[in-house]
């Protein structure tokens, strides 16, 4: 079992856009992504709205069919498995989304919602499943009595705990968490970030943690990938990426986050221009229209994704 838990190679997803009135075209929402998640590892994916983060997550979960590429889970290529052959693998791969309310049935008690997969897929009896659900609620910091209440009786943070309890019920190896704390207030966000950290320590689960919130990603991730217009433009360990960013986009992105401190000495790189449209991406380096260092070479030639130090990669002509 030397294969990494998850290995993604050359992943592409193209959406057809336009139609009757407009010219048909494609959006290359994911345009050649390579990604690895090791056992017990948390990999963060950051980037601005529309860069393709959620699409990567949904492709990995096989909620969406890929256009091109390979997704290996524990060494097995799952990228084209049928729904029935995916079923046993789904137990190992769970997800948590931004809006837990949308993923919880409003007419089902929380206990029943958590017990359901245990009963249907986990092979437990109803009674065992119910007891197990109560223990899971306790694990995520809720009272066992919460199992008899309905989702609307909980706050946003509590609902996210419930969604997490359900995600961990079958003992998955990987959890794809797409903006799991983005809708929460900071004081509650910190509770959930810590809960995810504790669960990882206890169960060795891996996370693919998708978020536009850079400081949260810094706190939770072992490794981080930065996406821009459907590609990964830089990846490395948490400290490589946050302390020594190489790509001009990463540098600007990190410097844009306001720090809650007076006299913060960080220098701000303010980019000019707007985020380009994914349906009509720039030539050469996709970042060149906004890049403070761009030359004519950047407009003409796509930079390669190169290793700048052990385990740290970036795609820019000038690094």
């Amino acid at each position, binding site marked *: 079992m030397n294969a990494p838990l998850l290995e993604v190679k050359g992943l592409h997803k193209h959406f057809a856009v336009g139609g009757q009135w407009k010219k048909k075209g494609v959006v290359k929402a994911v345009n050649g992504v390579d990604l690895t998640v090791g056992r017990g590892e948390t990999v963060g994916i950051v980037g601005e709205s529309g860069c393709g983060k959620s699409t990567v997550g949904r492709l990995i979960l096989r909620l969406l069919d890929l256009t091109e590429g390979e997704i290996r889970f524990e060494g097995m290529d799952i990228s084209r498995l049928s729904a029935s052959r995916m079923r046993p693998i789904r137990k190992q791969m769970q997800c948590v989304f931004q809006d837990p309310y949308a993923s919880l049935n409003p007419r089902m008690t929380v206990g029943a919602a958590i017990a359901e997969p245990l009963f249907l897929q986990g092979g437990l009896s109803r009674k065992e499943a119910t007891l197990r659900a109560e223990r899971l609620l306790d694990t995520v910091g809720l009272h066992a009595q919460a199992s008899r209440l309905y989702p609307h009786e909980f706050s946003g943070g509590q609902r996210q705990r419930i969604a997490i309890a359900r995600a961990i019920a079958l003992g998955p190896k990987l959890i794809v968490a797409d903006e799991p704390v983005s809708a929460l207030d900071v004081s509650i966000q910190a509770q959930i970030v810590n809960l995810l950290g504790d669960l990882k320590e206890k169960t060795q689960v891996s996370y693919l943690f998708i978020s536009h919130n*850079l400081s949260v990603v810094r706190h939770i991730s072992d490794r981080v990938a930065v996406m821009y217009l459907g590609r990964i433009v830089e990846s490395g360990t948490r400290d490589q990426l946050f302390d020594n960013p190489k790509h001009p986009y990463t540098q600007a992105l*990190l410097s*844009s986050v*306001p720090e809650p401190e007076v006299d913060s000495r960080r220098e701000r790189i303010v980019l000019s221009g707007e985020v380009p449209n994914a349906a009509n991406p720039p030539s050469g380096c996709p970042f060149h229209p906004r890049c403070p260092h761009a030359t004519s070479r950047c407009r003409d030639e796509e930079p390669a994704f190169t290793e700048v130090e052990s385990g740290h990669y970036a795609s820019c002509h000038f690094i």
Partner: protein
Amino acid sequence: MSQAILSVKALKTVFRDRKSERTVVDGIDFEIGSNEVVALVGESGCGKSITSLSIMGLLPRSGEVADGEIRFRGQNLVGLSKKEISRLRGNKMAMIFQEPMTSLNPVLTIGTQMTEGVRRHLGVSKEEAAKVADDWLRRVGFPEPARIRREYPHRLSGGMRQRVMLAMAMACKPELLIADEPTTALDVTIQAQVLDLIRQLIAETRMSVLFITHDLGVVAEMATRVVVMYAGQIVETADVRTLFTSPRHPYTKGLLASTPRMTGTARKLVPIPGSVPPAGQYAASCRFADRCPQARPECREQVPELRDAGGGHQVRCILA
């Protein structure tokens, strides 16, 4: 502090329906001086937006200012007629929101909306208004204003729309700008552009600003003074430096400890346990007591006063 542009005293705003009455803003006091940027922070539902809508006379039908004063340059706005308030609004006071689409008309071009607003408030000719509009569009970073004037709102990106809103607000030369989470929906690199722009406008026009946000990073960057709200009340207020370097209310301290950082060691976060009590259902105690790590029995026996801690620093905690 020079004479206050805005002074809010004992403001109480309630929502009523057939069954109940809820006080969601409960005795708020603060002032904004000339060229001051006061940040209003706190968690979702604590009453930030309702405070600002009370000031602007824009409360929804079911809401009402039940008590208190809102003085703009000395004039009490509470009890003014709709007509009188709307004359002040857009002229002396302007507001921008998190989602510009809610205040832009989707079927009119940017140009039409801007010139109409300018004519209404400044009483100038159509040509004059178009010139003012162009001038402001240029100042918020559209080098070719004529092109933007012809666009419809939905054709612009979020960051462009927010800059258009800013140009519209600024075109009427407000003395007070109320900005309710103006950058919350934007990507961080675009947020940086818009914050930069707002800062520049504050310096140039010397307007005063009430800046509403839940992001302490944005507070540190923009504010001269900070008002921290919790469950409809002010729990702490201080100049920005004091608030970040020596916060005294356990809630403010908790917020700072739970906020992840971009620098320093990525230590474990310290969350505030529990969650915010439901709005308008408060016991006669410190509203933070159930979540406060320092709470004592006394905290539950009365509602602590907002007390002066010296140097314009006020704290609502019996221990502070």
